[in-house]
């Protein structure tokens, strides 16, 4: 068995053909991770006991010739801001170092029900705030393609684990690009679903109007399989929607998919800082799709350039509210607070002063500022209005086209340390991924087929709840015209 060849699809076939058992594969992954992850740093911790228990149950079912789900036994990596009951979930923050999850996130509950295996919890920027995993309180995840470069972020650990064959697929979360950008940097597929498609219960909240959990995988087909398994309405997330995704997610009708019209928003290609190699790679993807028969049309999303400002006002505002709960009173307390006879306010100040990293503090304080009396209208309300205009731009564009194609990030993976001291520079890189979050749209990063050393992804943005369109085009692109 070659781990690097395993996709969800191939693993499932091997399992039902009894070429290997789920337990054997899980153990092989742990051996491989122990050898390889020291250099890469994708995982914060492994969940071996849980994984072996899960795998054994699947093997019992296979031995009894029971029908098993396509994800049964599949070894997955889980971003460490998603709760798995009984174990730590740190969100890569010191403030949650002593926290043990009290319940399973809905996505975890769903994956347990279909028999998926969880290998471990992956590294991220603290509370998913960052684009490089350099903001993790514990370690930096390296890019498997070049260890001097970042894996991207915030779901950098999940992306690196899949890219380095240390998991078959992974879950990430995406608030402003945190699934798609690391997927692009690491050469894998990353899907951010429509806002509301996947329950957020058990996801450590960052910015609640933007956060979505999504799938990261080696193929678009696998991303679709994992997405279908986690999607659906949840009574404990009032923003989740009963979407009733049908068979088209997994078995697209390529003759229908081929008729989808793809829009190219000119503003994304004249953006400041777009590396010419990226522009060229995205052109290659466009040419590839054209040769498959897709029709393209130039469109305009005129308010794109304001997306960074809008996002970096709205997101910190929500962050400042969401992270108020980490006060040293209700969750794992900082050890240095224990035993000191501090009054309540000093417990707050000390716990949060010691427990949060620089980026988290910056966003909480920025959020507190834009929500404060005297500035609320000028910043927060203004940003909410421009957010509506950005959404309106997409609504107009989707009258002309079915799907929008753009770059994912202005550059390929940057060097570790290159941007970390300049937050504004780091923020500006999010220009192509943020609009889909602001407008609540599904978007996917797919590796461009090319031969240069660093991977590059292109992005497809779909209409609300039309994941089938972007996944369909993606599956057609990755497998070529022979699929029909």
């Amino acid at each position, binding site marked *: 068995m070659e781990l690097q060849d395993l996709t969800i699809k191939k693993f499932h076939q091997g399992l039902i053909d009894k070429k290997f058992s789920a337990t054997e594969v899980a153990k092989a992954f742990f051996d491989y991770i122990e050898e390889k992850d020291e250099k890469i740093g994708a995982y914060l911790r492994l969940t071996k006991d849980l994984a072996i228990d899960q795998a054994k149950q699947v093997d019992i079912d296979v031995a009894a010739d029971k029908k098993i789900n396509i994800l049964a036994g599949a070894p997955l990596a889980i971003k460490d801001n998603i709760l798995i009951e009984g174990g730590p979930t740190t969100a890569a923050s010191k403030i949650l170092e002593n926290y043990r999850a009290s*319940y399973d996130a809905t996505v975890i509950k769903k994956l347990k029900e279909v028999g998926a295996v969880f290998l471990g919890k992956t590294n991220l920027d603290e509370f998913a705030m960052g684009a490089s995993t350099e903001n993790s309180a514990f370690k930096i995840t390296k890019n498997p393609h070049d260890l001097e470069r970042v894996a991207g972020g915030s779901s950098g650990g999940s992306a690196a684990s899949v890219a380095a064959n240390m998991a078959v697929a992974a879950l990430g979360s995406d608030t402003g690009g945190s699934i798609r950008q690391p997927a692009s940097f690491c050469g894998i597929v990353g899907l951010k679903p429509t806002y509301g498609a996947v329950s957020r219960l058990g996801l450590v909240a960052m910015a609640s109007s933007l956060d979505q959990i999504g799938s990261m995988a080696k193929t678009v087909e696998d991303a679709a399989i994992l997405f279908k398994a986690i999607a659906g309405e949840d009574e404990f997330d009032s923003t989740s929607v009963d979407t009733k995704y049908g068979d088209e997610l997994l078995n697209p009708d390529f003759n229908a998919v081929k008729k989808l019209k793809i829009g190219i928003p000119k503003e994304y290609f004249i953006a400041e800082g777009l590396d010419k190699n990226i522009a060229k790679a995205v052109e290659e993807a466009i040419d590839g799709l054209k040769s498959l028969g897709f029709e393209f049309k130039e469109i305009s999303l005129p308010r794109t350039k304001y997306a960074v*400002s809008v996002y970096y*006002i709205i997101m910190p505002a929500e962050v400042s509210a969401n992270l108020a709960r980490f006060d040293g009173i209700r969750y794992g307390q900082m050890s240095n607070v224990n035993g000191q006879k501090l009054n309540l306010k000093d417990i707050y100040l000390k716990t949060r002063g010691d427990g949060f990293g620089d980026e988290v503090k910056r966003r909480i304080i920025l959020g507190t500022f834009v929500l404060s009396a005297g500035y609320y209208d000028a910043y927060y309300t203004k940003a*909410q209005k421009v957010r509506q205009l950005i959404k309106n731009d997409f609504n107009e564009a989707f009258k002309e086209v079915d799907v929008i194609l753009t770059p994912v990030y202005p550059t390929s993976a940057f060097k570790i340390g290159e941007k970390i001291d300049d937050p504004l520079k780091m923020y500006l890189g999010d220009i192509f991924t943020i609009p889909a979050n602001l407008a609540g749209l599904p978007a996917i990063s797919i590796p461009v087929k090319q031969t240069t050393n660093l991977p590059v992804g292109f992005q497809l943005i779909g209409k609300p709840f039309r994941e089938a369109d972007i996944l369909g085009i993606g599956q057609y692109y990755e497998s070529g015209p022979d699929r029909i």
Partner: protein
Amino acid sequence: MTKNIIDKKTLEHLAGLSRIELKPGKEEKLLKDMEDILTYFDELKEVNTDNIEPMAGGVIQKNIFRDDETSDKRQATSDKLIEQFPEKENGFLKVPGVFADEV
């Protein structure tokens, strides 16, 4: 020189409101970063937003109602939630006096 959007005193006030103790030596960098970021936001002033309603998020905009009753679906986990309290007594969260200056 244009007036700064945010000064040291405001920053310290915001940090206090956010219940974050600022570390010595970190303030100046934070102040500069905040100023850079807030200055960048100035571009929003050029966007005409007359008669535009603020968008709070989400794709489907509808209110969600439920009966104002406790659900026992999650009761099973309440003990587990209490387990995570750093200090507890008889199933209650133990907190120092809110208005007490001294413990």
